């Protein structure tokens, strides 16, 4: 077979409001980086390149939430010049911890930190990039799993749809033979409503799941919240449990809003 010279896909690794941890997770794919660089022409990657080039792009992996108004326009431009746009990580998919502002009074928050808050150009409501543009695929997690990033890239390179699991973290816990923290230790754990992919990282280290991969595909958050209640958690505890990196995901939002209501009624 003669090797055909193919142009490599032009790729951008992009970032909005975020901690750069997702890009780091990609750079951590040390074993696969030679293959990735062999298959892709990564022309925009500020975390890893000195010089960066504009579109059009065949693929963009986008980290970060949309938290200031100028990001909306930049994102829309990026969408226009990108064939396949992938949200990478909890911020780009759900808004990340920046979305915690959605549950508070932003004006008061600004005043508490800045002497001249009127100079801030900050959105009062933060969401993932899917709030403003169509997204072709989402890789959840804070940070995302390096293995999943490589899996999605491998599938992109070979023209297949990625197939990341969206079942519960519990499945991964059972595969790893972990003893259930909910059942055997009365610990509040979001594992039964959270999408797998982390390899049950926190429960494997004796901590309840924080839900950073966002809701699983059949999440029943209210049922789990009622379990938390029976375990002795207050409404306030439950609000906080469901408000971490993925508080803006619908299946988690409905729980925290319901329990915030309960908390108000109790107060």
């Amino acid at each position: 077979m003669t090797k055909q010279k193919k142009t490599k896909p032009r790729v951008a690794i992009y970032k909005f409001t975020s901690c750069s941890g997702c890009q780091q997770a990609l750079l951590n794919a040390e074993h696969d980086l030679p293959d990735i660089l062999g298959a892709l022409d990564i022309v925009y990657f500020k975390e890893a390149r000195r010089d960066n080039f504009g579109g059009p792009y065949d693929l963009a992996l986008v980290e970060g939430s949309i938290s200031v108004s100028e990001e909306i326009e930049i994102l829309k431009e990026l969408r226009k010049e990108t064939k396949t746009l992938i949200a990478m990580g909890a911020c780009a998919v759900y808004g990340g911890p920046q979305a915690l502002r959605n549950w508070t009074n932003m004006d008061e928050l600004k005043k508490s930190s800045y002497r001249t808050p009127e100079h801030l150009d900050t959105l009062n409501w933060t969401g993932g990039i899917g709030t403003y543009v169509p997204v072709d695929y989402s890789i959840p997690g804070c940070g995302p799993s390096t293995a999943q990033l490589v899996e999605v890239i491998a599938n992109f390179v070979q023209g297949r749809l990625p197939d990341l699991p969206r079942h519960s973290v519990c499945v991964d816990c059972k595969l790893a033979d972990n003893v259930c923290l909910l059942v055997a230790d009365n610990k509040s754990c979001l594992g039964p409503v959270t999408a797998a992919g982390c390899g049950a990282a926190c429960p494997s280290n004796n901590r309840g799941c924080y839900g950073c991969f966002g809701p699983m595909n059949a999440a029943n958050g209210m049922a789990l919240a009622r379990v938390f209640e029976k375990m002795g958690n207050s409404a306030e505890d439950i609000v906080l449990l469901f408000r971490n990196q993925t508080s803006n995901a619908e299946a988690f939002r409905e729980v925290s809003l319901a329990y915030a209501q309960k908390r108000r009624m109790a107060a």
Partner: protein
Amino acid sequence: MALSKAEAELRKKGHFFIEGEAAEQILAGIPDDYSVIGPIREKLAVKYGPIESAADLAYGVTSTEDRGSYRLEDTGKHTLGNARPINSPKRFTHKPEEVLYETSRTQQGNIKYSTGPTRIEKLAFFGLKPCDVNAMSVMDLTFNKNFHDPAYDRNRRNNIIIGLNCLEPGQNCFCATFDTGPTLKDGFDLCLTELDSGYLVEVGSKVGAQIIGDADLRPASQDMLEVKEERAEKARHGMSKAFNLSKAVEALNENYDHPYWEQPSERCLSCANCINVCPTCYCYQIRDKSNVSGSKSVRTRTWDACQNLAFAAVHGGNFRPNRADRLRQWVNHKLNWTIEQYGRAGCVGCGRCITSCPTRIDITEPVWRLGGEGVKLDS
């Protein structure tokens, strides 16, 4: 010492007695090239896991189960049979993840297939609960009866089974329903019963006889067997969740579309804990995973579960998009449909699914709710 006629008869039947500690003697008799699995103690639970010596076994603890709850306590007694392992031993024969084969692309562009793992495991199970021994027979019906699944067979072929009868069933146990406990009738090489002063040992195979070195052993007495039977009978009747299986099947069939199913499903999390702790649930999915360049790919099979939304998904999704559909499917498959398929239930009554359900769903509840008093064990 001359044996009485009754004692000679018990010796012939393979019923022996080991005074005091038995594990050390038995483990010493297991061939050196075997890996031994037994109940081990972790901080929060007893689990089946690899052991090196009798010192690794989970002595002196008891587990208390409730719906969605498992607690471990010290008993101060040097006994083994009072704690129920929270995991199931299926992970050693039907592994959570198993590589089936690997493919690679040669420089000429041809695809090369590897044969996959070929190692034949030698596994000895010590202190396996009767429900778990029976669960292995149930699993065999799928993987090792009409055809031999190579991956399963590799792990299962050389098993040595040393059972430990249950004289104190847990709160979620209902093996009496299926006659898969509390004591073993067959399917073992050796079967132990913990008595006050030592272990009653029943030999179930030549391998078992070799392990224990039966020639030098004292035969059991008729009294010991009676004590065992008496305690087993008490255990059998102590299982409040046990029910009459054929009546339960009728109730499940008659009420297939009963609105009751919505009730437990409303709180079902689809987390699949029930499936993954079940010693007889065998479903798996197969995934191909290639590297970025496409030069190598691995085909792996991993446990799958009918409660997962992506389970058996075809174009358009899962045939059972609702939690109620999936839960009803599972309960019926365990308690009902397998009987038609294999001649015995897919459930062995170990109760792990009840213990491990965060929202306290109980697989026996549909039976009681749909069948009422009529499904009582001795009805």
